[in-house]
């Protein structure tokens, strides 16, 4: 087990090394930077091997023992299945002890690599938190990323030579010619892989946030990969800024956690106390769900104290010293907690963190960036905007699950449900092949959120994995089509199956997987299992909270819509008669480097829900090991009186039987409708469009979110900034300039006064002296007698005066 941090840490840093190498020497790597592709691919494949090794290490330490999950619809669980239907609340408590006893708590491997900062008694570190979820994510991310790295050799080969960008017209009227940027593409991919793996391995929520932003910036670079295209750089900006709105909420959550818990660390950690002794301190999870409280959620001490600041202030004022006050506060904390203090801050923390997830996972109301993000090259859409980065939000909800209160889970469920529905409606009418897939991604992410909000941790996370495989597959297939046809518009395709059989078949597998196809109650593709989990959980939830039942109905409707728009896509692309002769003639099957990843992902899409033969190993069972302690028993909200049902209830055979039936029926309905409209053409889509003209307009305009945001946020922000700039120039500066002018006026006034009065006085004195001189001139007569006379009189006078003063001065001495 000690090797896990080393293995995964190396897997994490390899792409970083690749990024650094390509950044510095990329353009010199082989012809036109082709070597960069090999460097990056080698790094990610090595990371995959390391992750796979880590998985075996983990499994050898924590073998999957008893069969769990849906395949274990055995008799023993059936007996309290009956009880479950009677009273969920009672069951929650009755089974609580039993479940914890049955489930061996597997401690995560957690630790720190180095400190970012440590002041006082708190610190923020770069560390790791490894449990089954981390390892499974590593496995999935490195695998999908490896496929996409290989695929990109084919898809991006144009970038190896001079590129003519037909979408950019210069002022001269010509199309843009530019050098290829093959190595840059792989450079960003490597940086992305590093960031994504860092996000997954992160040992604390601050480190998650660090890599959260980094995947965001990679996404920015890759969406805007065609920097010359205005639409691409607009989409990149939009993606980053909309994500920042979510991050703003996430920062609030971080602050609430930081102040309320004094740490960001997920797991317990060691730190020196004031006396220099190493002491264990509780991490976020232990504080929110202390083992002493049977892993039930409670407001951490810090949050309680923060909520009772004024009362604590009084205590502190009255007590003798700090330690004394601390003792008194300690005594009161439990009482305050019972009265509900601090719980509000727990909600704030949960909602804040979830805000970040809303941004990253493109949930309503921040879903607007994802469709535009399709401006990026298709492999990027597959890796970042389908399989991994956008799923990071779901991953974080799963990771942070122990801290979410039932109220927050309800918000998550509602957001997920709204998202899945509106995104599905947009997918129904979109004609751009990538956009259909983008809307579908948003919708599926909504599913995952909904499942998590339903209390189905396993359901949501399981769907994350299966979705990663089949959605990456679907995107890569669409990339293959786009590569062959040079268009994204499905109305210009059609009949491509003959030209591109491999792409067509693998894409069909992807469609079947996402629709949840299978032989009911026996076997199915991966989506069949994960969607069942969600529907089953929804069924239980709906049963427990009839008031919120519509969440369930919408999710069921969503399943039907998913099936419909996926098959619509497939039919429009691959079947029927070619609608654009030119496009059809030029279409060709892709190169093996692109087809091999398709086949690998198609296989994964089929089998990732299955059990490995002759073992107990299956994905849900592995993930079960990571279910946060205390969350598996469900919860009751005291504020609004509703229940988060325990997840094991949804695994009861009765519930599952029913859920599978519903899911299958809905998928079938969607399939049949799609076939009727686009396969056999029995129904005309144009008729439907005319009949539901208003709805169609809303859907095709994406519910007018972009327009509304432009009016509500962008323009006001620009207007405010305009006002402020104006105020700065004409308000504050006006004051400064005018006070300077006033000073100038004072100076001139002073100058005037100086000239008119002060100077005048001097002039007058001067003039007086002059005039006196003129007058005295009369004395100069030339008469010697008169001179002698004056001399004598003067001398006498002088003597008299001197005599007088001399004595006076002498007497003073």
């Amino acid at each position, binding site marked *: 087990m000690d090797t896990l941090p080393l293995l995964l840490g190396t897997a994490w840093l390899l792409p970083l090394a690749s990024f650094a190498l390509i950044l510095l020497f990329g353009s010199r790597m082989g012809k036109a930077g082709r070597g960069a592709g090999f460097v990056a691919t080698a790094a990610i494949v090595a990371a995959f091997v390391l992750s796979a090794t880590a998985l075996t290490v983990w499994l050898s330490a924590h073998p999957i023992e008893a069969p769990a999950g849906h395949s274990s619809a055995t008799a023993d669980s059936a007996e309290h299945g009956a009880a479950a239907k009677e009273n969920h609340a009672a069951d929650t408590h009755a089974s609580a002890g039993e479940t914890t006893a049955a489930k061996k708590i597997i401690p995560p491997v957690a630790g720190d690599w180095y400190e*970012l900062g440590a*002041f006082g008694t708190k610190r923020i570190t770069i560390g790791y938190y490894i449990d089954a979820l981390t390892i499974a994510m590593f496995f999935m991310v490195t695998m999908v990323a490896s496929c996409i790295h290989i695929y990109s050799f084919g898809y991006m080969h144009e970038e190896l030579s001079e590129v003519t960008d037909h979408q950019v017209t210069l002022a001269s009227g010509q199309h843009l010619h530019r050098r290829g940027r093959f190595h840059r593409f792989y450079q960003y991919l490597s940086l992305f892989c590093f960031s994504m793996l860092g996000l997954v391995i992160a040992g604390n929520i601050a480190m998650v946030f660090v890599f959260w932003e*980094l995947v965001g910036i990679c996404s*920015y670079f890759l969406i805007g990969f065609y920097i*010359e295209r205005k639409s691409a750089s607009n989409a990149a*900006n939009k993606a980053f800024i909309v994500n920042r709105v979510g991050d703003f909420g996430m920062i609030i959550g971080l602050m609430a956690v930081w*102040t309320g818990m004094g740490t960001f660390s997920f797991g317990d950690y060691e730190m020196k106390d004031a006396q220099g002794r190493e002491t264990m301190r509780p991490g976020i999870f232990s504080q929110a769900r202390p083992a002493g409280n049977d892993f039930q959620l409670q407001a951490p001490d810090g949050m309680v104290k923060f909520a009772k600041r004024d009362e604590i*202030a009084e205590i502190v004022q009255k007590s003798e010293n700090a330690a004394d006050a601390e003792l008194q506060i300690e005594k009161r904390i439990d009482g305050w907690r019972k009265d509900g203090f601090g719980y509000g801050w727990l909600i*704030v923390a949960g909602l804040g963190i979830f805000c970040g997830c809303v941004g990253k996972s493109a949930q309503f109301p921040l879903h607007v960036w994802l469709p535009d993000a399709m401006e990026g090259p298709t492999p990027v859409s597959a890796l970042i905007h389908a399989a991994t980065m956008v799923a990071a939000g779901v991953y974080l909800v799963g990771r942070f699950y122990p801290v979410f209160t039932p109220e927050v889970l309800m918000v998550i469920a509602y957001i997920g449900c709204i998202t899945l529905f509106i995104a599905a409606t947009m997918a129904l009418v979109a004609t751009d092949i990538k956009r259909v897939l983008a809307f579908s991604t948003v919708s599926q992410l909504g599913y995952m959120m909904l499942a998590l909000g339903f209390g189905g941790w396993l359901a949501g996370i399981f769907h994350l994995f299966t979705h990663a495989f089949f959605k990456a597959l679907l995107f890569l297939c669409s990339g293959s089509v786009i590569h062959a046809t040079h268009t994204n518009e499905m109305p210009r395709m059609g009949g491509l199956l003959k030209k591109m059989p491999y792409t067509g078949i693998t894409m069909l597998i992807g469609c079947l997987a996402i629709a949840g196809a299978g032989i009911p109650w026996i076997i199915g593709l991966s989506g069949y299992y994960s969607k069942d989990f969600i529907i089953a959980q929804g069924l239980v939830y709906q049963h427990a909270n009839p008031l919120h039942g519509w969440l369930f109905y919408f999710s069921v409707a969503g399943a039907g819509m998913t099936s419909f728009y996926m098959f619509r896509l497939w039919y429009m692309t691959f079947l029927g008669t070619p609608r654009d002769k030119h496009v059809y003639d030029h279409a060709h099957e892709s190169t093996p480097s692109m087809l091999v990843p398709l086949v690998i992902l198609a296989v994964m899409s089929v089998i990732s829900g299955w059990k490995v033969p002759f073992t107990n190993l299956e994905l849900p069972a592995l993930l079960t090991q990571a279910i946060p302690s205390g969350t598996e028993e469900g919860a009751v909200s005291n504020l609004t009186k509703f229940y988060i049902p325990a997840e094991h209830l949804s695994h009861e055979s009765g519930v599952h039987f029913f859920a599978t039936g519903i899911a299958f029926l809905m998928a079938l309905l969607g399939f049949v409708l799609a076939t009727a409209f686009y396969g056999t053409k029995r129904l005309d889509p144009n008729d439907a469009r005319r009949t539901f003209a208003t709805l169609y307009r809303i859907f095709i305009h994406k519910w007018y979110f972009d327009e509304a945001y432009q009016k509500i946020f962008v323009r006001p922000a620009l207007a405010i900034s305009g006002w402020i700039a104006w105020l700065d120039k004409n308000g504050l*500066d006006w004051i400064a300039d005018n006070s300077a002018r006033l000073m100038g006026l004072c100076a001139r006034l002073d100058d005037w006064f100086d000239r008119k009065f002060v100077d005048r006085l001097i002039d007058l004195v001067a003039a007086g002296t002059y005039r006196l001189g003129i007058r005295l001139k009369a004395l100069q007569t030339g008469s010697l007698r008169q001179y002698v006379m004056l001399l004598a009189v003067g001398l006498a006078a002088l003597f008299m005066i001197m005599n007088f003063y001399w004595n006076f001065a002498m007497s003073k001495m």
Partner: protein
Amino acid sequence: MSDFLTTLLSSVIFLPALGALLLCIVPIRSDRFIKQFSLAVTAVVFAITLWMAWPASSANEPGRFALGMANMQSMVLHEWIPSWNIYYFLGIDGISFPLALLTSFLSVLAMGASWPIAKHVKGYCVLFLLLETGMLGVFMSLDFFLFYVFWEVMLLPMYFLIGIWGGPRREYAAIKFFLFTLVGSVLLLVAMLMLYFNSDLRLLGPQQLADCRVVETKDAPEVQNILKDAKPVHTFNILALAEMGQAERSPFAQALWLGKSVSWWAFLFMFIGFVIKLPAVPVHTWLPEAHVEAPTPISMILAGVLLKMGGYGVLRFCYPICPDAAYELAWLVCGIGTLSMVYGAFAALAQKDFKRLVAYSSVSHMGYVLLGIGAWSAYAGNNYNADYWMWGMNGAMFQMIAHGLSSAGMFFLVGVIYDRVHHRNLDQFGGLFAKMPLYSGISVGIFFAALGLPGLCGFIGEVFVVLGCWSYSTALAVLAASVVVLTAGYILWTIQRVYLGAEYKGPHGDAITPITFRETAIAVPLLALAVVFGVYPKAMFDYMSPSIDKTVNALADWTRGHEKQKSPGDIIIGGVTPRIIIQEEEEEKLNPMMNDE
């Protein structure tokens, strides 16, 4: 040892001035040689400061910065004007030394960026070197009077550098800069004299006197001379003033005007003086003007170093010397900080001029510094726990260094393109990535550092400040956090308008040539440091945090003592608590319990 330290610190400060003097008296015609000589001088100064910063091989190596030491070190004290108790008193600690290091580092880069200067090169270099002396002196003086002298010394070269070598409206900008700063200086002078005449060394104990270097040791005969003096013994010693300010019976607590104490007025005057320099809204309007008109290297110095003096002053003077006023006015400090952040970000969003945009981003980023310093999270409501404030203050300090790197970098990069195309209109750029790939790559890196992207230096400061602030006031923290959206907005929009796009849209398109070796050598170290400090911020915190933590702890202890004296009714509880859960009945439930205890 003392002689060695005197030589060391004095040479750091006065070598540039000496260089300037040499340039004045030695008749050199070659502009190129003058620039090389000046560059060499700044490089030597940087080398000395770097030597001081390098971790010592053995403990207690004189002159080397002792990591982990919170107190002042390498102190140098000589009599200067004894009749007024003014000393030539220098020293460094974790707050001043990183800034001094930043100064010497940026001076080298800015001198390197001065190569395109062609007008009156000798005069330019002389003034530049004088400016460096002033800046280093400001950060290293521990005597208030000496500090003030350096503060003013710095002002004049800056005035001429903008006024002679600046752009078309240089005279207006220079005078505006000069007048604004002068107002601050006058207030600072008044505050300094107020503090001087109210100070009294007799209030300090022998140990404190020795700690503040008023006397050599606590057993020195001068101690008794001071303590037994019949008249108050005034001082300009910053450390002694801080000791007095934080003493239980502070000499600055007496009422002065309008029922407010000496401390209150001194704080206000100093605060205004420093905040003009920082600058914060509403006294920031000199900054965009000065930046737009100043030549590139001067903009780098202005943004990289001069603005930091505001933050340094608040941290070094306002808070330790006048804690009661700082405590009372914490809302003002934080409010102005947050206002600057939001206002600066909005104003930046509206700019059309590249340099103005960067200038407003400075206003926004320096707001974090004020917020981090001001968020007084050690209050009765959390039992005077200093932890969160420490995060805020360390974050603020880090933000100063980080902003010093990123803003200097941004101004330099604007200068690089301005030198080629001679305009700064944001709407007339575009497509630079194709023509100047290396330049654009570096630019994007530095702009992202300013955006606060993790892994680059801007992130750490901003996040630590915001984290520290929540416990003081949730409302301000939320406002401060919201700025991340605006920052992303204006930075990304700028990148899009300048670097991305298909082709260049402005005049002089032919003049756009790839970045030269000299320019690369200036920009790359900035980016490299931005990455290093972003990935391993401890490299910086190891220097700073002992001193900052000590300052914060002292102030937190002071708060406890201060509130003990007051009646419980006046306590400031901290921020606003939204009580989500409490309902009326629950509050009633609580009351009987309170009565029991």
